């Protein structure tokens, strides 16, 4: 397929996943806020820290209040990763490769975009009561995934799209783990591990990835080491880092048609390395080493995979300049 088309499909998917995850971030923070006794500003800052948004935010808003942070993450036009910008970008990408999508897919993306745009025009209402809109974001994202699953042939185009979804999902799940780290840091020992507050916060983390029920089935009661085990290393849970890395590698191999054991390109090589590490890791070691350090390193390596994907398939460095 055309390099440009692969690029657009990949990014359309990344932006859609990114938007859904923004909604989840806000959700988990709102949840934690319900039982939080500390300063609201501190809580909402943790979300900015996890997303690497602090400086950018501070240039535009006076205080990290709930309203300001949610506005920043949902509607701010200067925030490249705001839900509004994500949907605008996703839809533009979809439109420019429309003939490669099925009609229901295009219509689902288009509808998602129109809903977000409408919410942005009524932002004050949404900020007062954000939950219905956050739910709508998740539902709209799922609708796109649903029609994609039901109507799209799983050829090369589908693989590039899935690759985009999986890499983005892995990155965002790792950031949700980081929210906890920043919270702990800010609280500086106020809530000890295993305390009631701590458990509530871990439960919120799980809930925001839709994982709470599945976790309980696998592990029962909440213990940080098990939460990490579940979200990082689970073979079956679709948002775990291992699951997403595995699927990314599968898509890469399908794209290059590689059935052998040697990676066909840089992107495959890097994805394989990360996967092997996850397969050999133990949650207790990760916690010992430091969850934040692990997340940081994982995110860096995901970026490297993304860079390699771009170089290998989108950037056309192999093509001679014309004339």
């Amino acid at each position: 397929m055309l390099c440009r088309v692969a690029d657009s499909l990949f990014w359309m998917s990344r932006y859609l996943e990114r938007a859904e995850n923004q909604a989840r971030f806000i959700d988990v923070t709102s949840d934690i806020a319900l039982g939080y006794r500390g300063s609201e500003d501190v809580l909402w800052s943790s979300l900015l820290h996890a997303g690497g948004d602090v400086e950018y935010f501070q240039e535009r808003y006076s205080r990290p209040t709930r309203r300001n942070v949610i506005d920043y993450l949902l509607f701010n036009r200067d925030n490249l990763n705001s839900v509004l910008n994500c949907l605008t970008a996703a839809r533009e990408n979809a439109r420019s490769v429309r003939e490669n999508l099925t009609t229901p897919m295009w219509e689902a993306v288009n509808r998602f975009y129109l809903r977000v745009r409408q919410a942005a025009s009524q932002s004050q209402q949404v900020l007062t009561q954000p939950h219905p809109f956050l739910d709508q974001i998740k539902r709209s994202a799922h609708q796109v995934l649903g029609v994609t699953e039901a109507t799209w042939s799983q050829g090369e185009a589908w693989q590039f799209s899935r690759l985009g979804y999986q890499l983005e999902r892995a990155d965002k799940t790792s950031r949700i783990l980081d929210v906890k780290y920043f919270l702990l840091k800010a609280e500086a020992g106020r809530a000890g591990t295993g305390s009631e507050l701590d458990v509530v916060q871990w439960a919120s983390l799980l809930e925001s990835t839709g994982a709470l029920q599945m976790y309980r089935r696998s592990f029962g009661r909440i213990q940080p080491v098990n939460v990490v085990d579940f979200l990082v290393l689970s073979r079956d849970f679709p948002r775990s880092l291992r699951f997403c890395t595995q699927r990314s590698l599968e898509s890469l191999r399908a794209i290059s048609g590689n059935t052998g054991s040697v990676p066909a390109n840089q992107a495959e090589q890097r994805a394989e390395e990360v996967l092997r590490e996850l397969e050999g890791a133990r949650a207790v070691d990760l916690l010992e080493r430091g969850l934040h350090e692990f997340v940081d390193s994982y995110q860096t390596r995901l970026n490297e995979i993304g860079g390699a994907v771009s170089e290998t398939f989108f950037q056309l460095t192999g093509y001679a300049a014309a004339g």
Partner: protein
Amino acid sequence: MAAGAANYDELLTVEGSPRHAALSECLSALSGEVLAERQRHAEEELLEKGITFAVYGHNDGHEKIWPFDVVPRPIPWDEWIMIEAGLRQRIRALNLFLDDVYGEGRIFRDGVVPESLVKSAKTYRPECIGFRPPGGVWTHVVGTDLVRHSDGTIYVLEDNLRCPSGVSYVLENREIMKRVLPEVFSGSTIASIEDYPERLLGALLKTAPAGCEHPTAVVLTPGIYNSAYFEHSFLAQQMGVELVTGPDLYVDSSDTVWMKTTRGPRRVDVIYRRIDDDFLDPEVFRADSMLGVPGLMRACRAGRVTLANAPGTGVADDKAVYQYVPAIIRYYLNEDAILKNVPTYLCSEPDQCRYVLENLDKLVVKPTNESGGYGILMGPTASDEERLRCGEQVRRDPRNYIAQPMLTLSTVPTVINGRLAPRHVDLRPFILYGDDVFVLPGGLTRVALREGSMIVNSSQGGGSKDTWVLLSETPFTRLQEQEQFSG
């Protein structure tokens, strides 16, 4: 040409009797409310599907939903036969003309068309001298605009030989009609148009460079901000070929065109290019164009790639050259033109120019090379200031203006605010030329939605209707016959 006493209505005679009994019967069986309801239904469909076009210079987002009206515009079969023959004749003659203009120039030597007029056209491309496209086909896709004057005669308003657009709306309009007015459909026998993408693909592949066994065709688009982007994407999808932008292609040192894919370069043999000549190739035309492909003309002249339509065709749809088309038909085909031209005054001729300037209040003045209905002066309805400005423009650049008497376009009932009202229409049939000429039955009927207006272009408030070439005047009889035979 005499001005008719009243507007010619495509559905009703002046006395009010229906021209097409079966069709009118079906339509009158639907109350005004029902029709308005179906109209709303159609508009919702278009919104949901995102069938849009872009309008330059609008602030509220650059896409607009395509305006469509449910009442179809009928054409009787015997009239269509005449139109089809006339269009076929015209396209064949114009292709021979283009071959000659960029070739031997016999028509100039024989004094039929002035060489200076042709070569001073803004769209004349000296880069095409000596070039011969595969099969001698210059205009693979043509959209010729027809109007019916109040005297009942059909005239050719202009030919569009470069990148005529609108066929995707023809196809989408038909789909919408099938869903929104199914009972009217079942009562009439209408020429089908669904095979257009198949025929277009055929025309493209048949004009591939010689020796090409399994040619690869693509649609080349300027991109999502172009006003006709929806159509580019739609046609590519319907034909099952790639939609490419300039940067997706490159031309190598052997003058071969390649597209950049994730599995390496893939050769391209035929390009349905929806980019104007000016922007097509920065090596040869505008050097600042980011939309084109450097070296494309090289590849084209070397016969390594077919461009549909060929570069340089614009010279034959220059409005001054239009005046000579009947003579062109006679010269190459030895036939009289079946379809009439609108009488045209060339401002490049001093005495004709003088007449035009003295009669600006009676004439329609058009630049020879604009599209979208821009730059046109509707003399009879224009303000004094507009006429003054037009006069100045004509004096400054007479070669690039022509004038015609104002026609009173025929009307078709249109749903306006829930009721039916007559609105002026024109017709753009589409003609394909591969190994033979194919005329799509019907075409795009454009309707001026403002009362009394005759400007039908979508960029200026126009809408469209489905066009029905009626295969039989008494479809109910035919149905009865069928029932007899099926026993």
